[in-house]
């Protein structure tokens, strides 16, 4: 029992970071139709920045906040490259974000070196049902819940959020009412950067990150996001949590080295299943 609780909570915490990454992917994809391959990079940048700032003596909270803003700035830069030029197709933009990921590798290695880094998060642990649970798990879960609630309110309650959604649902109409679709794309990328950054500062104390951790982060984030068709936040959250728990259970009860295989296989299954529900005609028509 205590084992199960242990795996469940740690899985939920890791799943929250997947969900946050997925929410960034969804935000960007909703508005621009671009799948941002650099999404994992935002988390890496924020996690490593926070670590450096903390060791430079900044207090907790401030260091994380600055790190998240840094990731937001990185998001803006990726957005400028990916959607700043008119006529860049979403497919080309995907490759552009892949290229930016390489550039980020270079910058990250210069600043932080090639070795994985971590920083201490919320210290201490609590005992629940016999399970020894780090407090950081609960911090991650709470912060992710807060971030998702804020994001949901932003999209449904604010005019800017609705304008962002409008760009996705009908770009022509958005332009016709005077919404600058390109600028909205940049807003989405910045927001995506912030969300990725939040995931990064939350997860780094749990698992150390290095410059090339982004590949696993992006695949897990994508796996979560694909559940909602890359456009809906709710299923992305559910997907992230399910993925995190599944990985944690596999690692706990079976074999740690197979945990990512399970997640990836799950993603493949979901994608293939979803594809069987759609035909090429529907997809081309929905452009």
């Amino acid at each position: 029992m205590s084992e199960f609780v242990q795996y469940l909570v740690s899985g939920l915490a890791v799943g929250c970071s997947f969900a946050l990454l997925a929410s960034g992917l969804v935000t960007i994809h909703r508005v621009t139709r671009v799948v941002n391959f650099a999404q994992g990079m935002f988390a890496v940048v924020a996690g490593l920045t926070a670590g450096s700032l903390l060791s430079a003596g900044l207090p907790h909270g401030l260091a994380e906040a600055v790190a998240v803003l840094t990731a937001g700035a990185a998001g803006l830069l990726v957005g400028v490259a990916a959607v700043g030029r008119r006529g860049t197709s979403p497919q080309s933009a995907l490759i552009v974000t892949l290229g930016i990921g390489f550039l980020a590798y270079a910058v990250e290695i210069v600043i932080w070196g090639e070795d994985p880094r971590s920083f201490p998060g919320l210290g201490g642990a609590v005992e629940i049902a016999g399970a020894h649970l780090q407090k950081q798990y609960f911090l991650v879960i709470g912060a992710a819940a807060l971030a998702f609630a804020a994001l949901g309110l932003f999209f449904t309650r604010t005019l800017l959020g609705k304008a962002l959604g409008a760009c996705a649902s009908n770009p022509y109409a958005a332009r016709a009412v005077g919404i600058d679709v390109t600028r909205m794309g940049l807003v989405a990328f910045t927001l995506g950067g912030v969300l990725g950054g939040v995931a990064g500062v939350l997860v780094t104390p749990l698992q150390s990150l290095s410059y090339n951790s982004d590949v696993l982060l992006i695949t897990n984030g994508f796996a979560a996001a694909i559940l909602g068709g890359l456009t809906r936040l709710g299923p992305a959250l559910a997907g992230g949590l399910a993925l995190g728990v599944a990985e944690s259970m596999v690692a706990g009860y079976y074999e740690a080295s197979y945990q990512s295989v399970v997640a990836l296989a799950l993603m493949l299954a979901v994608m293939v299943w979803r594809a069987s529900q759609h035909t090429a005609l529907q997809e081309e028509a929905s452009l």
Partner: protein
Amino acid sequence: MNKPTTQTRSQGGPPTRARRAAGKRSPAPARTPARLAAFGPAARLRRPRVLAVVALCAAALALPQVLPASDVPVLVTLLLSAIVVTGLSMLMGYAGQISLGHAAFYLIGAYTAALLATHGRPTWLGLAAAPLAAAVVAAVIGVPLLRLRGHQLAFATLAMQLILLNVVGQQEWTGGDIGLQGVPRLTVAGYEFSSATSYAYLTLAALALVVIVTRNVVASRPGRGLRALATSEVAAESAGVPVVAYKLAVFSLSAGFAGLAGGIYAFYTGYLAPGSFPVLLSFEFVVMAVIGGLGTVWGALAGAAVITLLLQELNELGTAEGMPGSAPAVLSYAVYGLLLVLVVLYLPRGLVPSATAWWERRRARRRSGGPHDDSPAAGAGAGRGADAGAAAGKGT
């Protein structure tokens, strides 16, 4: 009903082109898309092209002899990459599918060859089995995976490679993370390939085979159907192109090429580990294909050559005295990134098609004596379709 609104958007175009390509009613030479021109015989370019091919072949044959011994391994790497990229470029440019996991097929080919050879089978059998195994695996996993398109397929292929790396790293019979050692040298009809130079010639021969196969596939009737596929699956399907079968065939073929390169690699290095086939290698192949120009043999060769040589130079620069230990990695990542972004944004069709278009425009202008910019093969229309990513899909 063709609304003017639709015409302002690029989607208005492709189906028409696709139908033209698929129906293949009136391929007026002046309108031949750049990709076709780059593969097939475009009358206007025939003479310079033949000369170029002859010169290139001569140079290629001479190179292993002329090059200093220390540079021959670079040549082998370059040629192996060119083999993989030729297939990948065809897959991306023609079937419109992005694969971010092509190094997986490279791995499959390499392990197939190595496992057969280390289990006492003749090495030539290993080499023959390498492309077959990769192609068969591609055909099997392609059935579900090729239902996906665009970014979904990109992630699916990436996931597939990650899974494969994980699995291979844990099996005893694959040597786990340590890998397979002591793969014997390739021996064909009593001749043992032992020197780097001999492998350079072997790889050259394999590349020639791959190029010939690709050209024939592309020039064939199915090849024309494939071109329709890249622009619009719906249009291609309605024109009677067996979309699913063609996509699967191209996927398997390109995987087979990667497997062949992997097989040679196994005998060449004599040592394999999962770490030799990182995800980054897959990305590298994509970078080469995109930079050279998707859907062209020349683009694949140019892309592989440019990137391999550039990396080599950067590596020398990075390992020069006084450089920090991370310099080679930093330099190569920075250059990859910059090249990829700049090419996709500013030369979306890649180096070779862009250069070809420029050359043809210049010739056309000189001939007609005026700026008559609507003639070139790679005119605006074809360009849109071959847009690095657009070639890879009809959007999401």
